[in-house]
């Protein structure tokens, strides 16, 4: 009967010891071991930008170099001049000052001769920025989408299409897009015909394709009902492409004709990150082009054929503004950071 409490007590002590030894849970994720001579160790210049804020003192000592490491110095209460100045703007420590003094005296030193800007590292030099939760660098974005015309009160086009983008950097991408269009007529089309006795001259769009560039200047996050955090970004798009429009004859007795359109486009959109491989994209795009419409004076004796009508077609500059939305798939489906958290 007396053995059991002892056993439990020892087990509890073991648990406590393990809890003390084990790294905190929030830092339990596997980390890449810093290279020897890193900032956590000796503050080598090659990796001076890699400061592992989450690295526990013990592991930093283990992974860094063996001499003059941060953990050891912290324990001794002495500052390593190559490490971060915890006292903010208290000035540089002895070694750096000595080096700078040597330069000032013209006696050489580790710094090249000439004017030297004294920039000791301090906490105020560090900008705390959390990791972006989604990296796009060198990934391919496959974006099937649908769209609808926003600025035509006579004919409404619906599009089905897609984009294939390759991200050169995390903010810049190049890609291609293609769309197939369908249409229906707004109520105004019928009402104008019936009320004003005028048949609107309209063209339908058949297809379009473009080479696009995308730039992401804005990213952010928002909380939904104060609990769920969602990250998003806004992007600009500009491109150049081609498309085809087709005249919808006012009188079906006469044939229509098609136009090949040169279509530059600009747009703005938003991307919401749902998973490492999945985003929802939506945006507005303006496809601008010079289109040609059916001539108003068409009869059996004038502009009766498609070629005649096309030759006498009236041109007009068109802005086809479309709202587009879709789900984008990212390849590869995951990504890894090359820098420490």
């Amino acid at each position: 009967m007396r053995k059991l409490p002892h056993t439990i007590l020892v087990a509890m002590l073991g648990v406590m010891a393990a809890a003390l030894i084990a790294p905190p849970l929030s830092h339990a994720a596997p980390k890449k071991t810093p290279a020897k001579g890193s900032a956590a160790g000796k503050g080598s210049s090659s990796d001076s930008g890699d400061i592992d804020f989450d690295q526990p003192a013990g592991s930093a000592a283990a992974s860094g170099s063996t001499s003059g490491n941060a953990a050891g110095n912290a324990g001794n209460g002495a500052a390593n001049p190559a490490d971060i100045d915890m006292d903010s703007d208290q000035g540089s420590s002895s070694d750096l000052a000595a080096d700078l003094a040597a330069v000032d005296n013209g006696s050489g030193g580790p710094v090249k001769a000439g004017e030297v800007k004294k920039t000791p590292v301090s906490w105020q030099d560090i900008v705390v920025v959390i990791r972006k939760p989604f990296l796009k660098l060198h990934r391919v974005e496959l974006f099937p989408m649908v769209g609808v015309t926003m600025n035509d009160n006579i004919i409404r086009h619906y599009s089905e299409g897609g984009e294939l983008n390759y991200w050169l950097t995390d903010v810049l991408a190049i890609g291609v897009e293609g769309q197939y269009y369908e249409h229906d007529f707004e109520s105004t089309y019928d009402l104008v015909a019936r009320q004003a006795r005028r048949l609107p001259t309209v063209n339908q769009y058949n297809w379009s394709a473009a080479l696009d560039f995308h730039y992401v200047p804005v990213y952010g996050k928002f909380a939904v009902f104060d609990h769920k955090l969602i990250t998003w970004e806004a992007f600009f798009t500009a491109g150049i492409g081609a498309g085809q429009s087709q005249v919808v004859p006012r009188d079906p007795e006469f044939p229509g004709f098609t136009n090949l359109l040169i279509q530059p486009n600009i747009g703005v959109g938003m991307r919401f990150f749902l998973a490492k491989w999945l985003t929802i994209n939506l945006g507005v795009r303006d496809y601008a082009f010079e289109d040609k419409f059916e001539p108003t004076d068409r009869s059996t004796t004038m502009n009766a054929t498609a070629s005649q009508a096309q030759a006498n077609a009236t041109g007009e500059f068109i802005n086809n503004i479309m709202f587009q939305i879709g789900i984008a798939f990212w390849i590869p489906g995951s990504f890894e950071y090359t820098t420490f958290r």
Partner: protein
Amino acid sequence: MTMRTSQILAGLAGMLALATATPAHADDFLGNRTNGLSKDYAVRHRKLLVAHRLEFTPLFETTVNAAYQSIIGGGAKLEYHISDRLSIGVIGVGSTALNTALTNRILPTLASQSSQAAAYQSACPSGVNGPCTGVLPRAPSQTEFLDHLNTMPIHGAAYLSLTPWYGKLAAFSSAFVAFDFYFQAGVALAQLDSNCPQTPGAALGAANNVCWDTHPGTALMSGANSIPAVLDPNVDQPLNSGFRAGLYLGGGVHVFLNDFLALDLTVRDYAFEDNPSGADVNADLFVGPNKVLGDDNRFISHLFFGAGLSIMLPTTVQRTP
């Protein structure tokens, strides 16, 4: 097995149990580690940029994809944020109207009012109180077309607003600003206006007697004689002016420039009974109520885009715990 051995084994078992235990956290979809705080507020010490504040917003508003008349105007929004998510408000806008591209395209193809008047006087030699024996023009004149269109000098809404999303964004990695999305629903109010002159006794189709039909869609009894209705909607009153009430829906975003100023971008839909063309919609050849086909007015959306600068009062903000 000695007692010491069993105690050591128990201690090791305890350590092993701790080392292999499933942590009290999980990975989110992006692989980031989460813990019990995931059920807590997403953001602590957050500035309550809207809660318990009065928002006054001078604004500009314009229709999106209007058919005949673009409505462009300015006004103000007054909104009180009961909490961080819920608010009530009113908006009022005074507007002017501009012809759309469609209207400007139709107009040059229509006849002048003077030629239209001559056609009426020829077809209806007895005037408005006599039968029209000739052929009436079927297309409206320029004046008739324009006089039937209505404008919206004043419109507004009273609404309830929900702000479910808030966040912050970085623009060009240098400007960090807070924003929120909101959605609104309420009652839309509008004053519509059209003016098609009718002057009894004036010549048919004269400038002051454009909508000269005094009995649209109905026969006129003159003694024992019945004068048939003039089945020409172009000379009927448009019946698309007056006060309207309907449904208001909106959605927008505040982009905070500082603690008390925000850029306010909104898409608003004022939906109510309207007949923007003022012409015959239900194909009964007159403008007015029809026992079978109903009115020519119909419940339609009036989509607006608005931009304004919100001033939040008081200018100081509180923070969450």
